[in-house]
């Protein structure tokens, strides 16, 4: 027992687990749902209780310990013990996991509350209400395992758990084939990433073990990562086209493997394709899992492993460039989507790319800052979209909306705050976090082409502002384009839905205060106002850079200007001259259709990977190996061989004549005795 031991941590994940297990088991064994009040109390109570515990522990962490010594550990038991290697089931609360835990339980609790209102009148399925919350609580548990895990193995358990829950919830309305298919797609694409993640874990474990330090525990790895910094792996000569040939740093290779996992979970090129399809799930799921928490697991993991990434410049540059390309690529797709949730989905992919830019240029605190503000405003936008979808009777096509401002005032107002935040308008939270990322990219001289990354980020900021305001104008302003039946029934959502919207709007508005850049704080006379940065510095250290306040303000001014230009363009096209977009689209029809069809990447993957793989599986694996070899030769072949042997030969030993049996018995007895007395 030291001052770092804290047995309260275990309850943060265990409470949602208990709620999930309880309601899940009840569903399995009882004929009908629990009383609805009880379901709500369990489902909403557990994350709120977790949030309260987490808040208390983070408070005592921040106030009770020295900055360099800020961590709590809760060790439940030794999970794996083999020789010198021990993996504990233990939880770690340090500044990085503090932020994550608060986001997961805080935003998670709000979304749980919202879900009560959203799922209340959903009768698509028997017992759906309780099943939904059982999954949602299971997700919260898995996500908390992921962020609180003290070593890579516990993290991996959570990592797989959130993937499973994501699959279950995307396909929640599984009676429609498309939803089930979307769930499967998400699961399969994530498996590809998970494979890379596993290889990374194995590689790190193997190299630490061969350096005499068998561990997967984060703090031990961070303390001993120097053992590996000089080690290199030789590349086979077939890979001579790769940069850095003939050898790569061991850490570079390990970090790239880990990053493949992050790409899968956080929907980056080339594994982003599952996230837009994941919008088939209920909207609160899109908000919780596919915007605020699970998809940020990849960023969290990169920040958590920052000690390794910092020693692998090649991997860092890859992270930054993949992030930048994804940010731009997804933003352009977002320009032409007409499904309200798809626009938000591509925007999420794009914003996740932003976070990877920050993680890649070693601006870990900027990445976490944007992760947090993004969780606020993107959850807000998704929940607002859900409210719109409910009000519009499950209509998701923005070309059939319009004029909702007066009909749904609360939704309108909170959604507008979310749009302003994501567009980076000062003083909303997104302005500060986006600005910090662009600043970090601008100053990251170690990353090749960093000024291009900055430029891409800048362009993306403009595109983001444009497509978000396009969405806003199409949904909330102008004349309603819905059919008159729907139009007559548009209504504001109930209190369960509006209250979380308001809470998230407040967070989106003021969330920037957690990481107010120092330059702004000094204006107001507050030194070191970027409290998030200084809080995270001991865990995920960003290299110090001396930035002139003038540079900082100049960059912020540029970003804001670009954002405002995007807004102005959207206002012109979708508010002032509503006839223009259709004309422009007609003028550049092939390009427009390419973008609208998401660059036909899904079709490309289907032609290049999916169909050959499915064909190979059907013909060679299923028909050849499974039916031919395993079933034909193995199972049925053995049975047939025995049958034939008995039928053709052995059965004739059964003559039916008693005396032949007796004779055989006697012969056997004589031989046995002869053998027994052979030596005598």
């Amino acid at each position: 027992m030291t001052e770092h031991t804290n047995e309260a941590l275990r309850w943060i994940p265990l409470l949602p687990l208990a709620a999930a297990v309880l309601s899940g088991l009840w569903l399995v064994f009882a004929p009908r749902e629990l009383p609805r009040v009880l379901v709500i109390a369990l489902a909403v109570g557990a994350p709120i209780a977790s949030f309260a515990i987490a808040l208390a522990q983070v408070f005592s962490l921040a106030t009770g310990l020295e900055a360099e010594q800020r961590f709590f550990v809760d060790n439940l038991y030794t999970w794996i013990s083999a020789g010198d290697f021990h993996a504990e089931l233990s939880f770690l609360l340090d500044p990085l996991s503090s932020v994550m835990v608060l986001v997961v339980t805080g935003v998670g609790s709000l979304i749980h509350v919202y879900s009560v209102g959203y799922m209340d009148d959903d009768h698509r399925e028997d017992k759906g209400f309780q099943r939904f919350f059982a999954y949602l609580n299971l997700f919260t548990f898995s996500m908390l395992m992921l962020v609180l895990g003290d070593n890579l193995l516990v993290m991996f358990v959570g990592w797989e758990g959130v993937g499973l829950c994501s699959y279950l919830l995307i396909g929640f309305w599984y009676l429609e084939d498309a939803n089930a298919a979307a769930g499967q797609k998400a699961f399969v694409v994530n498996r590809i990433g998970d494979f890379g993640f596993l290889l990374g874990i194995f590689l790190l474990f193997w190299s630490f073990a061969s350096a005499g330090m068998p561990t997967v525990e984060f703090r031990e790895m961070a303390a001993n990562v120097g053992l590996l910094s000089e080690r290199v792996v030789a590349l086979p000569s077939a890979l001579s086209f790769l940069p850095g040939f003939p050898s790569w740093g061991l850490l570079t290779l390990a970090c790239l493997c880990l990053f493949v996992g992050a790409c899968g979970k956080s929907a980056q090129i080339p594994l982003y394709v599952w996230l837009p399809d994941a919008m088939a799930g209920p909207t609160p799921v899109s908000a919780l899992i596919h915007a605020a928490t699970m998809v940020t697991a990849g960023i969290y993991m990169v920040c958590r492993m920052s000690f390794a990434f910092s020693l692998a410049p090649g991997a860092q540059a890859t992270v930054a460039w993949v992030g930048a390309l994804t940010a731009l690529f997804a933003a352009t797709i977002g320009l032409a989507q007409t499904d309200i949730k798809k626009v938000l989905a591509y925007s999420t992919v794009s914003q996740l790319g932003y976070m990877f830019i920050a993680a890649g240029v070693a601006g870990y605190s900027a990445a976490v800052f944007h992760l947090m503000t993004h969780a606020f405003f993107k959850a807000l936008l998704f929940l607002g979209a859900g409210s719109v979808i409910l009000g519009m009777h499950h209509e998701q096509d923005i070309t059939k909306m319009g004029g909702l401002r007066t009909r749904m005032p609360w939704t309108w107002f909170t959604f507008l705050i979310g749009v302003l935040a994501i567009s980076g308008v000062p003083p909303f939270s997104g302005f500060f976090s986006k600005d910090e990322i662009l600043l970090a990219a601008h100053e990251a001289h170690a990353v090749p082409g960093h000024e291009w990354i900055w430029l891409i980020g800048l362009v993306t900021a403009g595109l983001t502002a444009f497509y978000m305001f396009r969405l806003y104008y199409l949904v909330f302003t102008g004349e309603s384009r819905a059919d008159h039946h729907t139009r007559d029934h548009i209504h504001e959502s109930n209190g369960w839905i509006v209250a979380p919207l308001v809470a998230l709007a407040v967070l989106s508005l003021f969330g920037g205060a957690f990481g107010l850049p120092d330059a702004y704080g000094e204006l107001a006379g507050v030194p070191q106002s970027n409290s998030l940065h200084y809080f995270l510095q001991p865990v995920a250290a960003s290299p110090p850079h001396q930035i002139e306040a003038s540079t900082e303000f100049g960059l912020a001014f540029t970003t804001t200007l670009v954002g405002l230009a995007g807004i102005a363009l959207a206002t012109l096209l979708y508010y002032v001259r509503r006839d223009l977009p259709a004309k422009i689209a007609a003028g550049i029809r092939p390009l427009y259709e390419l973008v609208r069809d998401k660059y036909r990447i899904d079709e490309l993957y289907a032609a290049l990977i999916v169909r050959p793989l499915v064909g190979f599986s059907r013909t060679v694996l299923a028909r050849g190996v499974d039916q031919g070899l395993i079933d034909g030769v193995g199972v049925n072949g053995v049975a047939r061989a025995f049958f034939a042997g008995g039928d053709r030969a052995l059965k004739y030993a059964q003559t039916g004549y008693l005396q032949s049996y007796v004779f055989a018995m006697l012969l056997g007895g004589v031989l046995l005795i002869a053998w027994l007395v052979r030596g005598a």
Partner: protein
Amino acid sequence: MGDISPFQFQVVAALIFLIGVAGVLTRRNMIVMFMCIELMLNASNLSLVAFSREIGDDQGQVFAFLVMVVAAVEVAVGLAIIISLVRNRDTVNIEDASQMKW
């Protein structure tokens, strides 16, 4: 009894046993086969008792009693089978009961 050697007892027992074996293998009448089985059992009894006396240990005689009990039980079961066969087939010839095969 003193003039009969242990070896002679065993020779007699072996002879009786072989007579039983020969009877079981060659005769077709189930009653006769049955009696031959009894012969074999009693031959082994004789052998057991003779050895028991030779060694001076009572265990062999206990075994002999056990064999008698088993033989009695076997007679009950065997005769029941024969009777039911006679009722169904009207024969005691073992070759007429050869249906128990593939």
